[in-house]
C-alpha cells in the first residue's frame, strides 16, 4: 500500500489536523454540547483512518505503532475506572460525582463544570479513539496478509494476539 496521489496526500495532511482538533473539541465540550467521549474518540480515530487511506499503512504504523495504541487503549479504560473508584473513595459510592458535589461545583455551561463528567469523557475519548484505531489497523493488516501467497506465514500479523510456540 503506497498511498494515493499527491493531491490527496496534500489535502489530507491539512485536513487531518482540523479533524483531530475537532475530535478534541467534541471530547472536551462533551458535557456542554452534543457529543462526548465516544463521538470525539471516533473522530480522533477517523483522522488516523484518513492518514491510513492517503499515505498507506506503513506511514501510520510509524506515526502511531500499534503497541502504543494498545497501551493508550488500556490507559483510557484504566482512567475511566479510576474516576469511578475515586468516587468510591471520596464520595462513598462508586461513580458518584464527588467533584461536583463538594470540591468543584463550577457554574453551569462553563467549560469547568459538571464535576467528574469531563474527566470520564476524556478517558472514554482516549479509549474509543485508540481501540477504534486498532480495529481498523487490524483490518488493514488482515488485508495485507491475505494478498500474500498461502503458505508463507513467517511474519505473524500484528492484529492476531497469540500463536502457539
Amino acid at each position, binding site marked *: 500500500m503506497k498511498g494515493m496521489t499527491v493531491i490527496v496526500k496534500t489535502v489530507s495532511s491539512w485536513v487531518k489536523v482540523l479533524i483531530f482538533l475537532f475530535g478534541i473539541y467534541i471530547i472536551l465540550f462533551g458535557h456542554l454540547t452534543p457529543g462526548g467521549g465516544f463521538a470525539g474518540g471516533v473522530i480522533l480515530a477517523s483522522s488516523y483512518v484518513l492518514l491510513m487511506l492517503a499515505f498507506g499503512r506503513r506511514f501510520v504504523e510509524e506515526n502511531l505503532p500499534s503497541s502504543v495504541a494498545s497501551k493508550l487503549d*488500556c490507559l483510557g479504560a484504566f482512567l475511566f475506572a479510576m474516576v469511578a473508584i475515586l*468516587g468510591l473513595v471520596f464520595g462513598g*459510592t462508586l461513580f*458518584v*460525582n464527588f467533584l461536583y458535589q463538594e470540591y468543584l461545583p463550577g457554574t453551569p455551561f462553563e467549560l469547568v463544570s459538571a464535576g467528574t463528567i469531563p474527566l470520564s469523557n476524556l478517558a472514554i475519548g482516549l479509549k474509543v479513539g485508540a481501540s477504534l484505531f486498532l480495529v481498523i489497523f487490524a483490518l488493514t493488516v488482515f488485508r495485507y496478509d491475505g494478498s500474500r501467497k498461502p503458505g508463507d506465514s513467517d511474519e505473524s500479523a500484528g492484529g*492476531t494476539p*497469540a500463536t*502457539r510456540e
Partner: protein
Amino acid sequence: MNIPLPMFVVVPLVAAFVLPAFGRRLKPLATLIANLVTLFLLVLAVASVGTPAVYEVGGWSIPLGINMVLDGLSSLLLLAISVVSAAAMLFSARYMEQYTAKPKYLSLFLLMVAGMNGVVLSGDIFNLYVFLEIASIASYALVGFGCEHEELEASFKYMVLGSIASAFILFGVALVYANTGSLNMAYIADAIGRMGTNVGLTLALSLFIAGFGLKAALVPFHAWLPDAHPSAPAPISAMLSGVLIKALGVYALARLIFNLFGVSVALGWLLVGLGLASMIAGGLLAIGQWDFKRLLAYSSISQIGYVILGLGLGALLMAQNANPAWAALAILGGLFHLANHAVYKSLLFLTSGSVELATGTREMRKMGGLGDRMPVTRAACAVASASIAGVPPFPGFWSKLILVIAAVQAGFYWIAVAIVAVAVCTLIMYLKVHRYVFLGELPPDLQTVRENKGSILFAMAGLTCVCALMGLLVLVPSLRSSVLDPAVSVLTDGVQSSTHLMSP
C-alpha cells in the same frame, strides 16, 4: 459485613486493563496479580454469603439509576464463578506457558470473570445484556486463542451463533422496555404483574428463551458448544463449561422466567421439555465421542439439561399450585446440580488439559495406561467422574437423588426414569474415559509421559477437595440454610422477590 457490590466487577476489570501493559519480562508478575485478583474475588464471594444487599451506582436511586442486587441466587452463582475461576487461573499459571501473549490471555480471562460477575449482580436487564456481551466477547477471543485452523473455525462459529443470541436478547430487552416502560427488574416485574402479558411481552419472552437457551447450549440450540469448548485452552474450557453457560444462560433464564415474567404451566412444560431433550441427546451423543474434551463438552449439554429440568419441574409445580415443598425440592435439586456441575465439570476439563499437556493428544484411542504415570490427574478424574455419574458419597448423587424424589413426589414417574437412565448413560461415558485414558496398556510413543508439576497439581487437588466435600452443602443443615435455601427461596418467591426492591 457490608461489601460494595461493584467490587466484584471493578477489581477484575481494572486488573484486566492493567495486565496487557506488562511485557515479556513482567509475565510472572502479571500471573501473580491475576491469581491474587481471583483469590480476592473468592474471599469476597465467601464473605458476601448470607448478606443480601442492594447497591445504587453513583448514588442514584432506582428507577433513575443503575442498581446491583445480591440475593441468594446471585450469591450461589458468585461462589461457583469465583471457586472455578480461582482454580482455572491457578491452573493457567503453568498451563498457559506453552502459548505466547500470556498477559493478553490473563486480561481476557479477567474480563470474562468481570462480565459474569456483572451478569449475576445486575439489577436491570439492560446492564445484564451489557455484561453478558463483555463475557461473551472475551470468551469468543479465548476460544480462538490458539490461532490454529480448527480453533479459529470453532471461535468463528461460536461468535456467529453467540451474536445471534445476543441480538435476540437485545431485541427482547427493547420489547420489554417498550411494553413496560422500565429496564429495572423490580419495575418490570411490577408492571407485568399489574397489566398481565400481551403479545409484545410474549414475543420478548420467546426471544429470551431462544437467546439465553443458545447461551446455555440447550438442545436444539447446542450446535456451537461441542466445537467451542474443546477448542479453547483447558482452563478456559473449564470456565466455559463450568460457569459461563450457567451464568449467562441458566441464571439469566431463571431470573427472567421466575422473577420477572412469572411462571406458567406452559413455560414449565417448555423448560421440562428442553431439559429432557438436552439430557438425553447430550448423553447419547457423548458416549460415541473419542476426543476427550469433546466428550466432556457433550456431557455438559446433558448435565445442563438436569439443571433446566429441575428448574422447569419447579416452575411447573408452582404454576399448578401443587405442594410448594415439592416445587422447592425440584428447584433445590436443579440449583445444587448447577453448583455441582460447575465444580466437577471444570475439574474434568482441567484433568483433560493435564493429560493433553503430558501426551500432546486428545484422542482417547491413542492413550492408555496413564493411571500409573499420572496418579494425581487420575485421582482427580476419578473423583469428578464418580460425582458426575452419581456414585453415592459424591455430590452428584445427592443432586440427582433430590431431582428423582421431587419428580416422584410430583407424580412424574417417567421423568424420574429418564433421570436415572441418563445417569446410567453418564456412568458409561466416564467408564469409557477411564478405560481408554487411565487403564490398559501404555502405547509405545507415550513411554516417557510424566505427571505435570506445580500449579497444575495444586489447582486439580484443590478442586478435587471442593468436589469431594460439596455433598456437605445439602447434608449439613446450617450450610444448606446459608447457601442453597436462600437461592431456592429467591426462585420460589417468584415475582415477589423482585418487586420488594421497588422504592416506595
